[in-house]
């Protein structure tokens, strides 16, 4: 298919005043979605705060079973992916197609690295029986409420991991569109909005890492 595009002039939906107006409206929508995302994660953080306040000893004991090195590694991986994402948006804004494709590709690769590390963490926990609620079979913990920590651990990292998975799917779609040459300085809304989503995923992990792995 061939799409003739006049330089600097882009088609936009008729109810907008200009292409920028359309971009702006899309962005407001994305920020509203991210507002909802914060509230979506909120109950888990509240649950964490309450149970930690009630059973500090259980938290102390249980959190030491997590490997902070893997958590730190994943933090670095996500921070790097946020940077490549920002560079992808930059490449789109400045109209360098190969750099958009490269940076989005790197972001997807780093997101996959994150999930691989997560897979090793999870499989170890499944193996020794550090599982949520009724599935908990691990023997080495003294405090009766320690399994609660792992219920919250799996809910929080699981919901975050789901967001990473969805992020990979969306990034893959944007990546293939970038390869087709859909984006440039006059139109890069999907790249920008995917970027906002991806940075939000990083934002959640920035809090999850110290809360789960570091402050025992």
């Amino acid at each position: 298919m061939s799409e003739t595009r006049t330089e600097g002039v882009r088609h936009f939906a008729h109810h907008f005043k200009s292409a920028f107006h359309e971009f702006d409206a899309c962005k407001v929508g994305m920020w509203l979605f991210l507002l909802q995302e914060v509230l979506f994660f909120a109950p888990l953080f509240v649950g964490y705060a309450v149970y930690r306040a009630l059973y500090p000893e259980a938290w102390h004991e249980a959190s030491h079973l997590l490997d902070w090195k893997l958590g730190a590694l994943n933090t670095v991986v996500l921070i790097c992916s946020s940077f490549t994402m920002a560079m992808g948006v930059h490449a789109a804004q400045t109209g360098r197609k190969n750099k958009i494709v490269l940076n989005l590709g790197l972001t997807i690769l780093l997101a996959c690295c994150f999930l691989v590390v997560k897979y090793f963490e999870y499989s170890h926990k499944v193996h020794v029986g550090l599982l949520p609620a009724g599935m908990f079979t691990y023997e080495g913990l003294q405090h009766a409420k320690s399994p609660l920590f792992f219920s919250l651990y799996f809910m929080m990292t699981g919901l975050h991991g789901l967001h990473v998975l969805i992020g990979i799917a969306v990034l893959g779609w944007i990546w293939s569109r970038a390869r087709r040459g859909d984006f440039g300085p006059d139109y890069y809304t999907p790249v920008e909005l995917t970027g906002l989503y991806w940075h939000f995923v990083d934002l959640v992990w920035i809090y999850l890492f110290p809360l789960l792995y570091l402050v025992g």
Partner: protein
Amino acid sequence: MSQHKEHPPEHAEHKGHHILPVLTGAKVWIALLIFTAITVAAARFDMGNVNFTVAMAIATIKAFLVVLFFMGMKYDTNENRIIFFSSFIFLFIFIFLTYSDVLFRELVMK
């Protein structure tokens, strides 16, 4: 008599497209890595309750770096700022009220 209303000048609408300089992006990236190293190092020392405060303070600095620069909030409209930051006000109310209930419940029940 028919006053023809002109559209506002078009150029005013293009001011919002801000491009984050690569150098700024790289600086933020390095800063985030350094803060990650600091938070890991700080956790090695047992300082009691101070550990939690330090970890949360560093996480909040990192969060601000991501939101302001990577998400471009520093260059965004006030409308978008209010939308996003209002979510944290509600998150705070949610945590604060629930937490204070848990902490002071025993005092009230006595």
